[in-house]
């Protein structure tokens, strides 16, 4: 068969193992998503303004009525907000994928000889990168409004990594939603009833002790609260039991279930 008789030079296939190709595809996709973020600065600004508004709202509007045991509310609040904003940030995965699907880009990617999981992994990785930026902003704003973490710097970084890891694992669930939604608006609407209870019915903003009994059980042991507890303990240098390990187990469990779900949805999505 001699179909390739074009006058242009033949393409040169670079030689790499399939695993290295998969990594290269993920990075290509992640770079593409991050470029979009830079190109539409308004979306980035909004992604950063929202958590800052939360900080200001709880720090200055609600703080007077929220009592935390043995300490200042601002030190309780900032680690919690940090966990909350990374989870909110992971919602971007659903919106981004739904947009790509809507615009027919996923269709084009599916007809390319690229790694099948690269579209999803590229998206979750670029959203992770955006979350790193959000964490830096929240830390700076937090310090500005009086947040004083007493733990070590290493522990602070560990806390940040834990929050990022937890949100990253959850983002595979949002990837599933993004592929299942008919458009990006619906994708965004679908994520709301999920993230609202897990972030607000938790120990992120207030101690669970004041919640009614039926809610307290859920709010104490649900994964977001465990993660917030671990992040808070690490940042403040206070005891937090096994919550770091529990949070890690939740994160691992989430990605083990959610990633295969999202990938199988990607294979079917048309």
């Amino acid at each position, binding site marked *: 068969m001699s*179909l390739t*008789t*074009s006058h242009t030079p033949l*393409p040169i296939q*670079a030689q790499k193992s399939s695993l290295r190709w998969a990594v290269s595809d993920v990075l*290509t996709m992640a770079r593409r998503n991050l470029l979009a973020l830079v190109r539409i600065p308004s979306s980035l600004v909004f992604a950063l303004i929202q958590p800052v508004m939360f900080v200001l709202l709880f720090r200055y509007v609600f703080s007077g009525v929220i009592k935390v045991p043995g300490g200042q509310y601002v030190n309780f609040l900032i680690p919690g907000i940090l966990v909350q904003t990374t989870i909110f940030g992971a919602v971007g995965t659903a919106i981004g994928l739904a947009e790509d699907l809507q615009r027919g880009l996923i269709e084009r990617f599916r007809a390319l*000889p690229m790694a099948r999981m690269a579209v999803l992994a590229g998206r979750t990785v670029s959203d992770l990168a955006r979350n790193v930026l959000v964490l830096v902003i929240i830390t700076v704003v937090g310090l500005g409004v009086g947040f004083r973490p007493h733990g070590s710097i290493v522990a602070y970084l560990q806390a940040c990594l834990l929050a990022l890891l937890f949100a990253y694992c959850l983002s595979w669930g949002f990837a599933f939603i993004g592929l299942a939604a008919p458009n990006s608006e619906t994708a965004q609407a679908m994520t709301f009833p999920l993230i609202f209870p897990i972030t607000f019915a938790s120990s992120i903003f207030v101690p669970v002790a004041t919640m009614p009994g039926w809610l307290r059980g859920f709010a104490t042991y649900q994964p977001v609260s465990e993660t917030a507890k671990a992040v808070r303990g690490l940042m403040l240098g206070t005891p937090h039991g096994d919550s770091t390990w529990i949070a890690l187990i939740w994160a691992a469990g989430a990605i083990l279930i959610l990633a295969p779900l999202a990938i199988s949805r990607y294979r079917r999505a*048309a």
Partner: protein
Amino acid sequence: MSEFAVEALNIVRTFKDNEVRALDDVTLHVPAREVFGLLGPNGSGKTTMIRILSTILSPTSGSATVNGFDVVKHPDEVRRSIGLAGQYATVDENLTGFENLRMIGSLNHLEKKFVVNRSRELLEQFGLTDAANRIAKTYSGGMRRRLDLAAALVANPPLLFLDEPTTGLDPQSRQDLWAIIETLVEGGTSVLLTTQYLEEADRLCKQLVVLDHGKIIAEGTSQELKTRLGNTVLSLSFANTADASHGAALLDGISSKPANVDGTVVEFTVERGPSAAADALRRIDAAGITLTGLTLREPSLDDVFLNLTGHKAEDAPSGAIDDAPKSRRARKARS
């Protein structure tokens, strides 16, 4: 190895638990190094066929090879040997023209240096060099289509799938795209294109099939189909329906095909337009009937369908854009 770029045998594709048969036993033999056309209205199964051949969708039954590779068993080999461009111009709006091409090249696993050179070369060939560093969101419809086509060409594939490449484009952009496609085929590329426009199929395709509700209802060269149809449509408008049916009866025999009467309009497909028109005028005039209008036009997809199936081409949700160029052509009388 096969001399066909695409060989599809008895392809069936159903959706929603067999309720919708998008493709019903379609067999295609697309020769290498020419343009092969899939002609049909929206919803006839054209895009489903392209999606199956480009490995995006799997067939419910039947088999297909693309450049000698089975689409189900060896999808990666198929993907390496095809380029896909479509009516939706799937370029990434937030990337520049150059970045779009570089991304596709890198996802095709081509060498970096090659991708950069190839991208520059394609941007220049398609008149996009000045816009290379602008984000695609700022591009016009025609520029997007050209970028989309350039993206499909980065890996220099021997076979291109073009899904309604000119739908919704203005006449000039359409001409430009046709010229590009012709150049590609001269260079040895095989093209499978879908279209709703008979004019486009006529201009580009050596051979074509006509699809209706997932079935092939006609196939052959464009000339063969036109001969079956008659070359020109003679359209006569009357003052009222009574005159129209009287007129249709008077003109019996002017065409080898029966008249199509639609309200006050009577249409015939005829071989020689001007002489048929003169003949029609004489007969109508002799009977003392007044005509309100007479036009000669090229047959449209609707005429093809009317002749082949007895019904008009249905389902045109995007008709608002699609019909504009068609009706412009329709008004252009032939001499």
